[in-house]
């Protein structure tokens, strides 16, 4: 008798079902057992920045000793805002803690996607906080103009300062031999002498790329020329006489004394220019400044010093702190808040300062041996003046509009004032559409 092995429809379906069942069974068997209780697991999202290096190297190991299982997930700066906002809003729960750039706080605050950390037990009224830093954690802001819809809302602590980053001046001490230059005119004049003496190639370097980079570079000059961004009704006033003077100085004098390709420079190129020994001075955040003494990362170790930003009317820098928020969708919310309480304690902040990072508590600035000589300078800058960017959820768009116009003027090497007029009109139009007035 002969057995037929004809392929029938029924046998195909049976075989398919059998295969599916077998695959499911194997997959199930192959999976690890359901995870046990998460313990003190905390998933931290951060954008890649040298300002977080001391935290990563010294504080995460300490946190592990405290029983926190830290997962540190880094992304490029340019994609984190949208990624985290989508995570928070969709409730995806991919992170327990975001280390935000401080201008993003209003955007997350207005969308109501972050936990109330005050209710979680973090004391925002602790006098040890640097006042201007903890203020940035509240939404709506405790002082200053508020956007429509939030005029009467109670300020809630939705973020806490994490690394107290702010702009300071880094300069070549063999070019500026009398210490930090006090004014922008001095930066240029002494810088030119440095170029003539063959010590440097350019008096200054900055970021010229459209959007956030160019606005960040122009902002301290704008502040030091005495400019203000919005009035208390959200009308753009950055195109005031002071603002225009700062923009003309920036796209004219500054460009003439910077590398020829500065229009396309972002933080990596400006970092290379100052750490590589080509530039005489730079206004920057701590990311590259922390590398100033490391011969492995700079060609001019020992020749870079720090100072308060130069002034025209006043020496005001831009604040750009790392600020931590816990999304409402965080899978390990309680752990994240517990971690933050430990992290912002005076003891841990002192350790952070020892590790070389700018702390967020005043007491930590006063420790015997700060881990980096930038830290006391940062405190001096805080006392001299450091302002955050305007607290509006639409800052990203405002910065984009302004950045494009500034970048165009920078390409031309002139017309800074006109660029501000154009940008002010566009910002006003945009905010009108957004219902600000």
């Amino acid at each position, binding site marked *: 008798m002969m057995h037929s092995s004809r392929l029938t429809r029924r046998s195909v379906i049976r075989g398919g079902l059998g295969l599916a069942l077998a695959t499911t069974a194997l997959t199930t068997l192959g999976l690890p057992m359901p995870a046990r209780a998460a313990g003190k697991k905390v998933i931290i999202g951060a954008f890649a920045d040298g300002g977080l290096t001391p935290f990563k190297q010294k504080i995460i190991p300490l946190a592990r000793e405290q029983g926190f299982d830290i997962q540190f997930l880094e992304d490029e700066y340019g994609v984190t805002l949208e990624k985290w*906002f989508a995570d928070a809003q969709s409730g995806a729960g991919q992170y327990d803690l975001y280390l935000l750039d401080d201008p993003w706080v209003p955007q997350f605050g207005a969308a109501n996607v972050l936990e109330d950390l005050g209710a979680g037990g973090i004391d925002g009224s602790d006098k040890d906080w640097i006042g201007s830093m903890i203020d940035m954690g509240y939404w709506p802001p405790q002082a200053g103009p508020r956007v429509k819809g939030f005029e009467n809302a109670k300020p809630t602590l939705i973020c806490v300062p994490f690394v107290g980053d702010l702009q300071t001046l880094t300069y070549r001490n063999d070019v500026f031999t009398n210490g930090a230059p006090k004014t922008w005119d001095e930066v240029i004049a002494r810088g030119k002498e440095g170029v003539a003496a063959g010590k440097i190639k350019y008096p200054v370097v900055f970021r010229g790329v*459209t*959007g956030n980079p160019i606005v960040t570079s122009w902002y301290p000059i704008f502040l030091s020329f005495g400019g203000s961004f919005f009035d208390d009704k959200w009308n753009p006033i950055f195109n005031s006489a002071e603002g225009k003077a700062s923009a003309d100085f920036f796209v004219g004098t500054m460009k003439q004394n910077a590398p020829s*390709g500065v229009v*396309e420079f972002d933080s990596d190129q400006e970092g290379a220019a100052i750490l590589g020994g080509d530039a005489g001075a730079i206004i920057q955040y701590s990311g590259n400044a922390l590398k100033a003494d490391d011969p492995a990362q700079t060609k001019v170790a020992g020749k870079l010093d720090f100072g308060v930003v130069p002034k025209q009317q006043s020496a005001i820098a831009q604040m750009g702190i790392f600020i931590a928020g816990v999304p409402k969708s965080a899978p390990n919310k309680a752990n994240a808040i517990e971690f933050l309480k430990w992290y912002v304690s005076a003891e841990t902040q002192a350790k952070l300062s020892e590790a070389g990072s700018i702390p967020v508590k005043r007491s930590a600035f006063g420790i015997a041996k700060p881990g980096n000589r930038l830290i006391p300078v940062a405190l001096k800058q805080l006392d001299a003046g450091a302002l955050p960017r305007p607290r509006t*959820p639409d800052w990203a768009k405002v910065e984009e509009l302004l950045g*494009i116009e500034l970048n165009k003027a920078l390409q031309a090497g002139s017309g800074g004032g006109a660029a501000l007029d154009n940008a002010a009109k566009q910002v006003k139009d945009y905010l009108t559409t957004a219902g600000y007035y």
Partner: protein
Amino acid sequence: MHGAAQARKYRLQGAGLDLALPYLMLAPGLTIVLGVLVYPLWDGLRASTKAYRYGSPVGDIGLQNYVRLWSDVQFLNSLWVTVKFVALSVSFEAVLGFALALFCLREFQGIRLLRTVLIIPMVVTPVVVAIVFRLIYASDAGMLTALSQAMGGGAVQILGNPVNAFVGLVVLDVWEWTPLMFLILLAGLQSLPHEPFEAARVDGAGAWRVFADLTFPMMRPVLAVAIVLRTIDAFGTFDQVFVLTRGGPGEATRLISIYGYDTAFKFQQTGYAAALFVTIGLVVLALAFSAIRLLRRVDAS
């Protein structure tokens, strides 16, 4: 009796299975298409009629988002930049791709290797291509600047100059996507019948006559398909610009995809961005249909 009932039952079961089986087989694919294509499209259309604030819908506004687009200077600028980019890139790719395909149609030693080498750019990840071109174009440490300095020149300004940055982006795209044109057109050329060409040769037609009277007319349908495909694809160019210029300097390379991305994800204007992408989708579809109609008309005449 019992046997007959049993047989009828099996027949019925078989008939039922016959009826259901095609649908059962289609069900997984259909579910996936509905889930990942139809639903997002529908949701996008719905979102385009809503106003959003802080990432959440706050009300229906009908077609206002669509109307607003045409008075949005940034949108119009991005659209213009995109149209210029697509027109220039696809034209160069078509001409170069055709030329390469004609060259590689011939059989000579090493032709197989050459054909393989020519398609390499196409298989490199676009982000990697953009990073490499950034290293070539960078004015401080780029390869072009190094070359220029070695010859006694200064820094080469590509990414900091609006015209140069735009041209640089087109060059990148042409480098990466000419191989696709080449591949499609080579396949088209290889499938052409030999007889007309042999007849032309017997009649003493020169290379240009053969190309103008035979090759090009016969290749027109293939060329049209390749151009339409590349045009649709080029309209969606994103990653190369995102890495290379982020749309700058100024707005010189801000393609519609970058503007749409920023509008949707950075500025959280979800409804407006949805209207923007729907509009662009319709523009691309209209272009594709026009190209195909034009082709049919040309063929008919």
